[in-house]
């Protein structure tokens, strides 16, 4: 199982918050990527939450992609096929679409057609609380945030047959609150048929082991790799080599 690190970019600043709010600056992106190189992380996701398009931020994003000696996925603020081409021309290996699943499936079709399914990750932001017994997912564009049926979005994701699907618990984002059992169960059921990455609330290596035991293809960590302790002091970290070795047992060796 892979342990994927996700970092948030607010234009050219690396930030982290809680539930996508109250972001604080956590350090120079290039330096942090160099640290992740030394820690030999499995994969990096760079998620843009600012307003700059890939073309407007080209030089900076290209430097980040070049510095990373691990596979890198880009997510966020992708509006056109030109944005997609721009990202791949910078050397990014994959793109993750979340809101495009609801607002702009043409972008997903284009990427699969031109760059292949292995370059596409689909993301679903799951709201953990039920509404009239229905699970919902959050999608947003510039104008509004909508809550839609989680199951419909999951079925739609599966129909694209992407490389993998990431399910993120929005309520746990950045919280380091541990696993939300109800959400993990939902994701685990989905992972019976697809390659699913779990994201949200991971605070320790034992959470990662719990995710592995449920058969997920991967787990995404954010705050756990940036913050340390209850006071959330900034300390870039990753599971140790010996811990990771345990996760890699049973690989296709």
């Amino acid at each position, binding site marked *: 199982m*892979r342990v994927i690190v996700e970092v948030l970019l607010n234009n050219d600043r690396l930030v982290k918050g809680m539930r996508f709010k109250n972001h604080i600056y956590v350090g120079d992106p290039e330096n942090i990527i160099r640290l992740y*190189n030394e820690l*030999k992380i*499995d994969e990096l996701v760079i998620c843009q939450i600012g307003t700059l398009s890939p073309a407007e931020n080209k030089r900076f994003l*290209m430097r980040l*992609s*070049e*510095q*990373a*000696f*691990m*596979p*890198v996925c880009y997510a966020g603020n992708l509006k056109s096929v030109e944005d997609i081409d721009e990202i*791949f021309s*910078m*050397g990014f*290996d994959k793109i993750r679409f979340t809101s495009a699943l609801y607002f702009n499936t043409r972008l997903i079709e284009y990427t699969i057609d*031109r*760059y*292949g*399914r*292995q*370059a596409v990750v689909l993301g679903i932001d799951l709201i953990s609380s039920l509404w009239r017994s229905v699970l919902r997912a959050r999608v947003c564009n510039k104008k509004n945030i909508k809550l839609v049926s989680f199951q419909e979005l999951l079925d739609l994701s599966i129909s694209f047959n992407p*490389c*993998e699907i990431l399910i993120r618990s929005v309520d746990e984002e950045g919280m380091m609150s541990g696993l939300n059992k109800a959400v993990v169960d939902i994701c685990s059921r989905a992972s019976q048929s697809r390659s699913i990455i779990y994201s949200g609330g991971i605070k320790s290596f034992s959470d990662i082991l719990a995710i592995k035991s449920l058969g997920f293809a991967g787990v995404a960590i954010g705050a756990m790799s940036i913050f340390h302790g209850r006071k959330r002091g900034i300390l870039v970290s990753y599971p140790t080599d010996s811990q990771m070795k345990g996760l*890699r047992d049973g*690989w*296709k*060796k």
Partner: protein
Amino acid sequence: MKKNKKIIVLNYGLGNTPTLANAIEFLGFDVEIKAKLAKEDINAVVFLPGVGSFDSGVNMLKDSGNFYFLKSAAQQSNFNLIGVCLGMQLLMSKSEEGIEEGLGIFDGDVIALKANQANVGWNYVYSNSEYGEGTVKGHWPRMYFVHSYRVNVKDSSLILAKSSFQNEDFPCIIGNGQHFGIQFHPERSHSDGLKLIKNLLTSMKCELL
């Protein structure tokens, strides 16, 4: 004074050019990104990256004016070619993914993985080849793979390392001492991948800056 061998990453429109070039530069070699090879590159080491389908790779090489240059330069003893990912597959004669003819530098073809799904992720690489000493032999490095097709070389002595996906073994490094094909992405495979690039370049008499 002996001139250092030139290293070029070919940017023909399909591939992870900047990352590969940065990895080579990070190792301490001088590297140039070029869109079109010319006569003066006949003694160079050329990296041929690639992401996408076989036919689009062949057509982009033709459109960029590099296809026939590579075919002919590969016959020269001072020219070295290293194909990475799709670039490795383009070194073969043909592919069941398309109808175009490849560069034909190695005799063999490209076939779909039996699992009929993409091999995406980290995997171990193993080698019995003497060539792999210090890089892959006996070390079982882990490398990052993204591919749905694999090469099938007629001469098995060209296989320098193998990996496996869903119980199917496939060649992941092939080479004849002059030209090489690498199925995984060494530039995205941390120190193991970087070490492989360094050893290849050193074996081709490229010198550090």
